[in-house]
């Protein structure tokens, strides 16, 4: 193909986005993706914070259990976890759960593990003298935790958890494999529907989805970088 042919192919390809309700449908699909991501992120942030605090408890049994959970969640690819939840739960317990439910469960469990690890690291990075100074001015352990440790931990966690959120949003692209009708699935439907009339539709559709993910994730990464730089100074 020479350049004018390619240009022609591209312009017909992108015309598919403006046919009928295609663009609006893709946006709707993006909405489903974001909704799943937002719900799992919110749950993981809260549960992960608690998990991180639990991991810091100095008790052998607690440490071992948390360690196994963390290791399992970090080793298994999210795709495998999704399959375990979607097919495994259905098969073993005989209950049928929707793809959305399976993905939210999986992303929450995974996000909790990752967030917990970040919280644990942040808590451990608070120097000992912070606790000691608190005690010296007569604060109770509870007050030390809530007024001294937590605010500093949260500050350190902001950029790290923002990066985690970006990763979680990116990972939600996998939910198409457990039958959720989201942006990728709708994209595939549009490509299928125009297979004969506009065979180049895949360029425009996948290009647009690519761009959509970028637009959602980029501001988060930028902000995370900015905050991190500011905190370092």
């Amino acid at each position, binding site marked *: 193909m020479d350049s004018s042919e*390619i240009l022609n192919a591209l312009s017909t390809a992108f015309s598919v986005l403006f046919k009928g309700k295609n663009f609006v449908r893709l946006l709707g699909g993006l909405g489903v993706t974001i909704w799943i991501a937002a719900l799992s992120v919110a749950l993981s942030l809260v549960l992960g914070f608690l998990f991180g605090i639990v991991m810091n408890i100095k008790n052998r049994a607690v440490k071992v259990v948390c360690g196994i959970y963390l*290791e399992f969640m970090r080793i298994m690819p999210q*795709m495998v976890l999704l399959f*375990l939840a979607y097919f495994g739960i259905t098969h073993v317990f005989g209950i049928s759960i929707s793809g959305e439910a399976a993905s939210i469960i999986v992303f929450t469990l995974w996000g909790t593990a990752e967030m917990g690890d970040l919280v644990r690291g942040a808590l451990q990075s608070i120097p000992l003298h912070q606790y000691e100074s608190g005690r010296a001015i007569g604060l109770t352990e509870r007050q030390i935790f809530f007024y001294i440790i937590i605010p500093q931990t949260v500050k350190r966690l902001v950029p790290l958890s923002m990066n985690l959120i970006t990763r979680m949003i990116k990972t939600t692209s996998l939910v198409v494999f457990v039958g959720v009708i989201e942006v*990728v699935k709708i994209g595939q439907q549009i490509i299928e529907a125009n297979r004969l009339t506009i*065979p180049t539709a895949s360029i425009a559709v*996948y290009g647009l989805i*690519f761009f959509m*993910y970028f637009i959602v994730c980029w501001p988060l*990464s930028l902000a995370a970088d900015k905050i991190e730089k500011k905190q370092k100074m």
Partner: protein
Amino acid sequence: MDFNFIKEVIPLYVEATWLTLRIGFIGIILSFITGIFCAVVRYWKIPVLNVIVRVYTEISRNTPLLIQLFFLYFALPRLGVKLSGEQCGIIGLTFLGGSYMAETFRSSLETVGRPQLESGMCVGLNKIQLVRYVVLPQALSVSVPGLVANIIFLLKETSVFSAVALADLMYVAKDLIGLYYKTEESLFLLVIAYFIILLPISLLSRFIEKRLRYGQFGNS
């Protein structure tokens, strides 16, 4: 659980594991090279290239590998660029991994402070010697935990290759579930296979991190 079935399909999983490892290995090596190149460009702020590398990093960090693969596999052939599943996998993994590696290298290069460079210049080292004897030894040791984390991340990401018709572990498991309806056995083997690949690397990363902490602070 049907153990006869498990025995029968294990060779399929072994083959798929090799495929996952092979593509993962090639992808990781290539991302490593891309990463070093990008980190060097960003560290010395080489004009023009610096901007290109920044744009590349942002794009690759903020888009999912799955969509990158779909674009390579389903969209590019329409423009006359035909790639096999394997090529797509390697290109996709390199595209994604390159930026992650670059970020790791860059942040570890930056941990080598100005005083180190200035001291090096004071004792009369030239630029190459400075890099060879002062910057690299320190930066590399700092970058190891990040590198191992990236390797684990990239190996995990290979699980989406089944989407571009590569017969990796995920693909075999999906196939067996569809063909024989042996869900439990197939998923069980899948989990085991990923454990065998990733657990040693994960444990190794713990060990390295401890050693490094020891090297830096003298306690672990």
